[in-house]
């Protein structure tokens, strides 16, 4: 009877504490003689237990995966007849895989691959509570501790900066404008990236909170003091002014410099274009002059880069082109001429050419006809019956 009631008493966690204390005092009563081992086992919460199990499983799984990956690498080296050491390099592995299992699938993620298991299996959140079930993080019960920690940090920084600003004002010092943060080339990471960084799912409204508070932070005159913190959450804007490396012209036996542009593509036309400088405006397309193109439109296409750079009678052009129709061939040659001319004009003209779209490849292709339709987009004439 007593035992039963004591057990009942013990099952209550608050009482358990009490009992522990009683134990430590060791009063030598009947209760002290009760074996509490089974209670100790019970101490770990169910959630913790489940987590531990899962973690253990995951660890084992990753271990076997790692082993397999290691063996796989050696097999691969064997198959390729090379030293296994160099197959430590991921690039080598990718090369071998695409060679052994060539795939034309459009999405690259759908093609066969072999990567370290850590890269393939997503990271898991570590345990957020200790064995007793007590949360590590003080914001655990917000259910998004990392996110709110971020907001908290941001405000903390802001407060610190305010304090610093007050100090500076008291010392009658102003901000050095040279030190101001230069953020024009970057932007805040987007919601998906933030979620990845925090390992938590957040709502759009929460993302807006993040952007607002971070914007307030960078507007602060002394925001450069927390540059490291800000930089974590910024990504560089797409670098628009990629300086393509302009090849240096070769010299032929007549002392003229020339550039050959290979793989000039447009629609289904493929060709190569040679630009010679200095020249007199001669043009040869597949051994024929500009009459190779019957339509004015095609001739104008070829003329455009030459007129644009004012090099019409200063260079000679030779082009070989095949496949496709006249407009595709003319477009391919136009691109080739423009790319070749870069070597013979100033940098700012090249920049202008880029703005004019002369250096941009035209990737558009013919759109396929759809079943049940007259063409790619056009529908059959609608008839009531």
């Amino acid at each position, binding site marked *: 009877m007593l035992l039963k009631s004591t057990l009942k008493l013990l099952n209550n966690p608050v009482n358990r504490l009490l009992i522990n204390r009683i134990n430590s005092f060791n009063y030598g009563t009947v209760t002290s003689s009760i074996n509490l081992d089974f209670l100790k086992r019970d101490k770990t919460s169910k959630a913790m237990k489940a987590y531990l199990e899962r973690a253990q499983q995951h660890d084992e799984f990753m271990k076997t995966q790692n082993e397999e990956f290691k063996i796989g690498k050696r097999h691969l080296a064997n198959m390729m007849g090379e030293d296994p050491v160099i197959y430590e390099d991921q690039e080598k592995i990718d090369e071998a895989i695409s060679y052994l299992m060539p795939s034309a699938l459009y999405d690259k993620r759908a093609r066969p691959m072999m990567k370290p298991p850590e890269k393939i299996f997503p990271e898991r959140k570590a345990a957020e509570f200790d064995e007793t079930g007590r949360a590590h993080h003080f914001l655990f019960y917000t259910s998004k501790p990392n996110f709110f920690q971020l907001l908290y940090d941001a405000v903390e920084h802001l407060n610190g900066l305010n304090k610093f600003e007050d100090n500076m004002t008291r010392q009658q010092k102003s901000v050095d404008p040279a030190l101001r943060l230069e953020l024009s080339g970057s932007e805040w990471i987007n919601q998906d990236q933030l979620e990845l960084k925090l390992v938590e799912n957040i709502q759009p409204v929460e993302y807006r909170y993040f952007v607002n508070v971070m914007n307030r932070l960078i507007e602060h005159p002394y925001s450069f003091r927390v540059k490291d913190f800000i930089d974590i959450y910024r990504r560089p804007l797409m670098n628009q002014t990629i300086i393509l490396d302009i090849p240096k012209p070769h010299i032929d036996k007549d002392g003229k410099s020339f550039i050959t542009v290979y793989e000039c593509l447009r629609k289904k036309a493929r060709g190569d274009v040679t630009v010679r400088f200095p020249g007199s405006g001669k043009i040869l397309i597949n051994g024929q*002059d500009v009459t190779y193109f019957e339509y*004015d439109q095609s001739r104008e296409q070829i003329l455009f880069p030459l007129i644009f750079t004012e090099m019409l009678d200063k260079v000679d052009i030779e082009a070989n082109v095949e496949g496709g129709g006249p407009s595709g061939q003319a477009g391919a040659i136009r691109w080739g001429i423009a790319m070749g001319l870069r070597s013979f004009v100033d940098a700012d003209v090249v920049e202008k050419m880029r703005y004019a779209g002369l250096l941009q490849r035209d990737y558009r292709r013919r759109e396929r006809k759809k079943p049940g339709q007259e063409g790619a987009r056009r529908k059959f004439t609608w008839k009531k019956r």
Partner: protein
Amino acid sequence: MLLRRSSRLIKPHIGLYSTVVEPKLNVDEFRTIEDNPVNHSKQHIGKYYKIDDGLKRKLFSQGGLPKKYEKQIKTFNEACLMVRPQAIEIMEYINRTDFSKPVVRYLLYGERGAGKTMTMAHLAHYGHENGFCLVHVPYAPDWYKRPKEFGPSATHEGMVDLPLDAASWLIHFKSQNNDLLTKSEVGISKTYDWSKREQTTAGSKLIELVDHGINRAKYASDVIAALMDEIKIASTAGKIKTMVLIDGYNSFFNEQTRVFSDTRKKHPVTPDKVTLTQPFINITNFDWCNGVCVLSVDIFGMLGWERESYLPRYLLGKEGFEHLDPFVPIKMDKYDERQFDSCISYYVNRKWIQNTAQGFDKELKFLSNSNPYKLMELCNSV
């Protein structure tokens, strides 16, 4: 491209649409005041000369100048031709020819729009001024590709007649040689019986023969055959000197025509089954003298599928080539630098080109590849 699109932005100034300019006293560099082709020489190459309106009507009213050129003449309010080096070359040859020898055949060939027809027109003018009797076919392929009317020949079994085309050519012949025919005393050598009641007696003038063909279209083809014989006889006798100009000569040797032997248009005939063919092949033969033949081969004289090359051997075929051999081939080239500049300044002078932004001529030169016809077409919109 750049020119064409910006041409819409031209400031509207006075006389935008007027192409008539005030006459200038000093002669532009691209013009020559020498209007008589007989006096044309190498120094006139690349320059424009003006054809008198009345003369133009006389020589080319029934054809002889390309239709688009006629339109341009109307717009420019003057008929101007450029003196091309090939025309000068042929003129020099003709001036030095010994006319007692068999006729020399000159054959113009070249790409489309290189100026073959225009050179023919220039030479027709030259021949007219020089007192030649002109046998000028403006464009022979018209007969075989776009016949006005066809029907079986009354006189030749199994042949096809083009009465209207033949009659209209006779009108053309008459209008070109009216003065010469009325003035000269050339009589025909024998009596031609057309029907029971109609005949042209020996000794009557050539013009009577021509008139008969014009009035009785039914006999026009036979009249042309007779006329060619008579011209040959008269020329050989030294009574007249003759210049034969046939544009699109290769159409006489085509494999097929769009002339049909039946009214249901089922069976197309070959050119040798058309009664008009033989007389013109006959007059380009070498068996007469006191004359000159200037012929041209044209890629568009062929029916659609045979247009791979503009060279005489391809266009004439074996038969045609052997018939003409030996001949003097003369290639019509595209404009050279001087001729191109001259043409451009003529267009600018006529205010036909109004947008003279920097480098416009280079652009036009590239796009047209200095081809006269292409240049004309491009300038229509500039």
